[in-house]
């Protein structure tokens, strides 16, 4: 955050921006990789347009990738880039508002032609009209230099031009003293089948790097080495939320010794989870692309009825379609995991933008009294553990569970310490044992600790049973319209949810002590809240960060914990949905901080709120 502009900064924020066709996301991913292998902590944020391939050079077609990397703990991709790499006028002008004064702009000078300025709705050339006076501008003829570098390999102009992302990457890698090796390896693998492209891309990468080393760029472009982060685990990799969630699902199946059936229908930004899970049959996961979201959730319910662990996934509008079927899963008490990768709404809204506005839907959004546990992931890497935890609840308590993540988490990446799956406790399921019979253990016998019913599946030759969405007799499971029975079943369902709280850990405090302000947050705001609280504490504000994983039910100690603070702040990327849950469940008065713009919180925004609400000052400035 408090990055310096030269020398040895503790962290740096770099943003790459250009057309979708410019390979921005690839460039970002490669830079992330190099950064990770340099031992930096990091967080990234791909920010692509809604269009598949928007017309080149337009403002709405700008694709961007931002990374923050550093030697401190990095939890967000950062508010304000230290360096912007802009491949065309649109990329420059769209991103300018984010840049702090003094930031470095590396621009492809050859792209600032009159025609392309017009494509970007610009009347004047910002490189010339003084509008960049507050920044350090380094205009390089990237396209031209790339063409020269790849000339020996005899590519056409189009293919040659396409190498410019690697040229720029080479330059930026030089700038931050980061290794080219992973990118070299990637290029070799990717273009194995086409030697000319392989050679050309390598040449571009090296040329960009050499340019940094040799060109006399003066003050604008100096090399800055970011020191390594003091990492604790032994092995790391970079991971996106979608990947981590996929791996968590794979691991959960294995921990439960249960085959997983993942049933879904594509929707942005949830599709990537399906993409990551396809082809993992040998890891116990089969995938099924259904004709719509209703079919997806229902086939998952069918799979769970048949003894596999059914999982479905979608985004808000698709989850809405699954609502009726979730009621069936509640009524029939089948394990089911429902993943919601939230996006900005209402309705189609802004599918590629992020939001946390499906919490109401998850907690309250069904007809009838249909309690469902809700759990949320806070960061890309956290998705792994959360997937396991959610699966554990679903299988142990014989219930559908909703797991909330969002478009930001799905696409963002971070450095992730490799988990040891052997260290996770196995996930118990409620299947009958080989000696169980309907007499020794009746179909609707309930586990007293969880109220879970037996998980019976067709093919089991000891049992035979029928189930459905009509109210069941508490004891026999037969259809029942009895008043007292419905009350008993309703109470049981409420208890079943409440029991989950007996199995989840007490809420802990992420950062800070038990005094002054408490910031209670959930989901993908984790990184920004964490940083804001850390900075506020450095300023002497008594503030703690409490981050919820379990939202329904809430951890049993939460009410008591929050009671120790003067003020509870609840920052959310919605109009105040967790705040509603806290008022509902704990009757606490909280101060809402809401942003609904499709963008993650800026750390600075949150910090300002913390300053405004500060009550107590820390005795001495500490470093949280």
């Amino acid at each position: 955050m408090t990055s310096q502009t030269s020398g040895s900064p503790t962290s740096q924020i770099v943003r790459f921006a250009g057309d979708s066709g410019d390979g921005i996301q690839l460039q970002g991913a490669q830079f992330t990789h190099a950064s990770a292998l340099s031992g930096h902590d990091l967080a990234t944020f791909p920010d692509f347009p809604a269009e598949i391939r928007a017309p080149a050079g337009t403002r709405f077609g700008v694709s961007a990738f931002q990374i923050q990397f550093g030697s401190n703990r990095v939890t967000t991709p950062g508010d304000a880039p230290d360096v912007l790499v802009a491949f065309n006028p649109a990329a420059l002008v769209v991103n300018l508002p984010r840049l702090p004064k003094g930031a470095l702009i590396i621009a492809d000078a050859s792209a600032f032609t009159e025609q392309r300025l017009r494509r970007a709705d610009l009347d004047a050339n910002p490189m010339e009209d003084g509008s960049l006076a507050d920044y350090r501008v380094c205009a390089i003829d990237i396209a031209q230099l790339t063409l020269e570098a790849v000339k020996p390999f005899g590519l056409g102009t189009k293919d040659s031009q396409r190498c410019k992302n690697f040229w720029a990457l080479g330059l930026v890698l030089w700038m931050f003293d980061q290794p080219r090796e992973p990118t070299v390896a990637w290029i070799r693998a990717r273009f194995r089948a086409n030697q000319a492209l392989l050679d050309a891309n390598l040449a571009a990468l090296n040329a960009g790097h050499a340019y940094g080393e040799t060109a006399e760029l003066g003050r604008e472009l100096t090399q800055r080495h970011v020191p390594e982060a003091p990492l604790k685990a032994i092995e790391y990799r970079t991971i996106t939320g979608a990947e981590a969630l996929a791996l968590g699902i794979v691991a959960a199946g294995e921990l439960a010794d249960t085959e997983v059936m993942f049933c879904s229908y594509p929707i942005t930004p949830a599709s990537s989870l399906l993409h990551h899970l396809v082809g993992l049959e040998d890891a116990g996961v089969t995938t099924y692309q259904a004709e719509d979201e209703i079919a997806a959730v229902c086939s998952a319910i069918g799979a769970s009825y048949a003894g596999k662990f059914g999982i479905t996934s979608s985004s808000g509008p698709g989850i809405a379609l699954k609502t009726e079927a979730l009621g069936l899963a509640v009524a029939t008490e089948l394990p089911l995991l429902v993943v919601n990768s939230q996006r900005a709404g209402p309705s189609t809204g802004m599918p590629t933008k992020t939001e946390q506005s499906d919490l109401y839907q998850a907690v309250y959004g069904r007809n009838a009294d249909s309690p469902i546990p809700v759990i949320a992931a806070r960061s890309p890497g956290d998705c792994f553990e959360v997937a396991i935890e959610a699966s554990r609840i679903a299988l142990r308590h014989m219930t559908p569970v909703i797991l909330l993540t969002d478009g930001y988490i799905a696409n963002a990446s971070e450095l992730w310490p490799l988990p040891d799956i052997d260290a996770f406790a196995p996930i118990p399921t409620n299947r009958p044992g080989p000696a169980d019979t309907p007499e020794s253990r009746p179909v609707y016998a309930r586990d007293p600790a969880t109220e879970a019913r037996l998980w019976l599946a067709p093919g089991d030759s000891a049992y035979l049973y029928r189930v459905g969405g009509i109210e069941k007799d508490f004891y026999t499971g037969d259809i029942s319209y009895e008043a007292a029975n419905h009350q008993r079943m309703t109470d049981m369902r409420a208890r079943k949810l409440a029991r989950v709280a007996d199995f989840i850990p007490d809420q802990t405090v992420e950062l800070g002590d038990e005094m002054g302000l408490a910031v209670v947050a959930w989901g993908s705001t984790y990184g920004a809240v964490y940083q804001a609280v850390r900075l506020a504490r450095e300023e002497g504000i008594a503030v703690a960060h409490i981050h919820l994983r379990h939202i329904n039910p809430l951890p049993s100690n939460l009410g008591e914990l929050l009671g120790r603070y003067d003020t509870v702040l609840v920052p959310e990327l919605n109009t105040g949905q967790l705040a509603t849950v806290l008022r509902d469940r704990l009757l606490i008065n909280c101060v809402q901080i809401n942003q609904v713009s499709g963008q993650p919180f800026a750390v600075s925004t949150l910090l300002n709120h913390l300053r405004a609400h500060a009550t107590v000052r820390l005795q001495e400035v500490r470093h949280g």
Partner: protein
Amino acid sequence: MAEAIVRKDYASDQEVRWCPGCGDYSILKAVHRALADAGADPHNTVFVSGIGCSSRLPYYVNTYGFHTIHGRAPTIATGVKLANPALDVWVITGDGDGLSIGGNHLLHALRRNIDLNILLFNNEIYGLTKGQYSPTSREGTRSPTSPGGSLDQPVVPGLFAVGAGATFIARAVDIDQKGLPGILNAGRDHKGTAFIEILQNCIVYNEDVWQSVSSKKTAADHQVLCVHGEPLLFGKERTQGLRLNLATLKLEAVTLGENGIDISDILVHDETSTTLAHLLLSMHSPLPTPMGIIHRRPTASFEQAFREKKTGQRRQRVKQLLRRGDLLDRR
């Protein structure tokens, strides 16, 4: 199941709750009979249904059963079958459940050709919700929501199935205790999705809509039983038959012995032909209603391709996946 099982072994202990005289009773009986004939193992048999009077059936069959939500039975059955392809999975649905709210799932089940045995009870009415017209109700049907007669052109279930690419299409009458069990088991034996439309009498809201086809007196004249390889004859004396009119590209009824027509003029049923299925199912009164196995063609069912590649070393594989990509090793 060691001992021989008989029909009543397949009846569950639940009290049957249809209206007295409802055609569903006969169908239930035929289902019990079919299971007994097939010697089906109740523990490996699953009945999945949607919502409607018809969809109550699973409660009354002593196998595994799942009474789900309106219109979604094919999707849940798909999940069941894909999760455990060894199961014998039956779907019970109605004209409302299967063709109104559930039409899309039926389409996709038929097109994917998963090995399900789908029984659609067609009473041309919404029974459970008290008698509104359904997508199969004939134009002009009077009901609480169409007191002046319905306006919609009805869907013909079999034609819809042809359009969806179904590989097995059959039709039977609820009270046909002789023929129905055999057709049910033909569907059960078919590898792929079998679609069986059962003409069912709702005695309360749409009484006798199938009268002419189902009553002993008139059946012979009003239905033509389709048997593969046999000429398409009908009538009490089987003196009438179907012929393809090349000018209209439609089937027409002719009488043996009249105008020089003999048996060689009569179309022979070819159950593998979708064109013939289309022709048969496009017939309107006064032409007879086609019954029996109208279409059947051998195919590989979806789940045969949808295979698990099991490995003995799943945990190993999971560990491998966790380590996929470049690692930063801090040792």
